[in-house]
């Protein structure tokens, strides 16, 4: 069973062709890491998975991204609906500055248009904050502004925010690169815990992190997939020489 399947994906920024014929499969309950040197297209690829790529002026996509068998780029498909089912956490924590911690966590629920009663919101918020491993640290100060937390906490808050709407897939775009090592470790542990319920795709420039956290790894170079396979294989006995060079640190 395939949760997300990318078939022959090409992407452009204007006339700049940045992704060439990418193929990828992500199975439910797994963590897939996307690695590669700067500029290889990892962020672009992940942003195609929740239709954020097209928000940039002049950006274009061709190909298919199948989510549970349905192409999210189909003509009838509403990108807004896609993003409710496929959530994203960004590189730099971006909690909404005008909202409290709890309001940040429940932002997706509150702004969805449904009127949920206070109690349901509070429950959802608590559940999400627990799942993000942040509950104990903030339970006594839920009304404080989200911006007051430390970097690592803010990022976990953003994860909670993404979890609260109960997506099925979570996309993480270098979630720990702006954080200190201790916070990075916590995020990695979190990812390990989350994979039971979600399908996770994580972009990282840190190979050790990819090795620690993921089940499958995709290595990209210049917008093309060089190799895709089980993490253990990609890191120990890769098929492609370029992969071997990269993971052994010979470049990038």
């Amino acid at each position, binding site marked *: 069973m395939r949760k997300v399947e990318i078939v022959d994906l090409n992407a452009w920024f204007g006339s700049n062709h940045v992704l060439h014929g990418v193929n990828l499969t992500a199975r439910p309950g797994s963590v897939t890491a996307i690695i590669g040197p700067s500029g290889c297209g990892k962020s672009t690829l992940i942003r195609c998975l929740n239709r954020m790529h097209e928000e940039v*002026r002049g950006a274009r996509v061709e190909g298919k991204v199948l989510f549970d068998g349905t192409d999210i780029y189909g003509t009838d498909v509403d990108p807004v609906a896609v993003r409710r089912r496929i959530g994203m956490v*960004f590189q*730099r924590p971006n909690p909404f500055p*005008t909202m409290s911690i709890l309001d940040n966590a429940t932002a*997706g629920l509150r*702004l*969805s248009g449904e009127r949920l009663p206070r109690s349901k919101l509070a429950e959802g918020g608590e559940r999400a904050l627990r799942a993000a491993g942040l509950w104990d640290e903030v339970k006594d100060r839920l009304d404080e502004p989200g911006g007051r937390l430390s970097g690592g906490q803010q990022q976990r808050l953003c994860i909670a*925010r993404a979890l609260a709407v109960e997506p099925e897939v979570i996309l993480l775009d270098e979630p720990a690169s702006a954080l200190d090592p201790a916070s990075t470790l916590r995020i990695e542990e979190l990812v390990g815990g989350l994979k039971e319920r979600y399908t996770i795709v994580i972009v990282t420039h840190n190979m050790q992190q990819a090795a620690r956290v993921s089940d499958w790894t995709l290595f990209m170079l210049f917008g093309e997939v060089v190799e895709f396979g089980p993490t253990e294989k990609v890191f120990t006995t890769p098929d492609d020489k370029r992969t071997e060079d990269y993971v052994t640190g010979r470049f990038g």
Partner: protein
Amino acid sequence: MSAAAGTVSLGPVRGIRRAKDTGFTVFLWTCAVLALVPLTWIAFYVVSKGIGALSWNFFTKEPAGPLNPQEGGIVQSFVGTGLIVGLATVIAVPLGILSGIYLAEYGKGRTASAIRLVAYVLLSTPSIVAGAFIWALVVVALGNFSALAGGLSLVVLMWPIVAIASEAVLRLVPQELREGALALGLPRWKAIVRVVMPTAGAGLLTAVMLAVARALGETAPVLLTALGNDYINTDIRAPTDAVPLRVYDYARTPVEALHGFAWGGALVLLAAVLFLAISTRVLSNRQQKRIA
């Protein structure tokens, strides 16, 4: 005889160069003083001459008869300003903010550039021209001067200010917040209204304050459209007074006792405008910190 080796023979030239440099520095500081002098002088005069005029009567009575002018007041001007500026604000602010939203959130092509250029051009419209425009369009057509015309002439001036200032403020909201909201599955309009605008919050308020501060002090357009009135008027279709207008009239009147009222009105105007200018600054600083 030449000087000892090492002591440079650039003496006289150096003197001239040094003189020019010193002269330059003196010039710069003179400019600073020259710029400060009028400000302090004006502030001093307005406060010292105006404060005496501020009495209970001043704020609550209409102009008195020719026998005892100093016992009257200019309440109708305050009411009129409230009416005219209030009307203008209610119209210009929504229009301006929506324009600003378009420019900041949606406009990326030629249309947006055109709108921006037009806003800038309108911003530099001499206020008398805005007055003449509404005079021709509304006053001449309807046959009488009115608070409505006054308000509309101020809208011509306020709309571009609110548009340009709110675009600037909305652009300051980091792109990542927009992306965070979109990634959460919010439609564009909700991302703007529920996330971007509240984040810009105080900034949008300063945009409004800038426009209102401008409108409060405008005389020429109000002169041409609302004409003025010695009595309180609340009918927007009738001639109405305004504080700057009254100051202008009393400045030219031969009745000396009323000159004091002119200073009083000037003091009130100055205080109001300064208050808005300072608040704008304070809010702006606070807003910068919040976003950073």
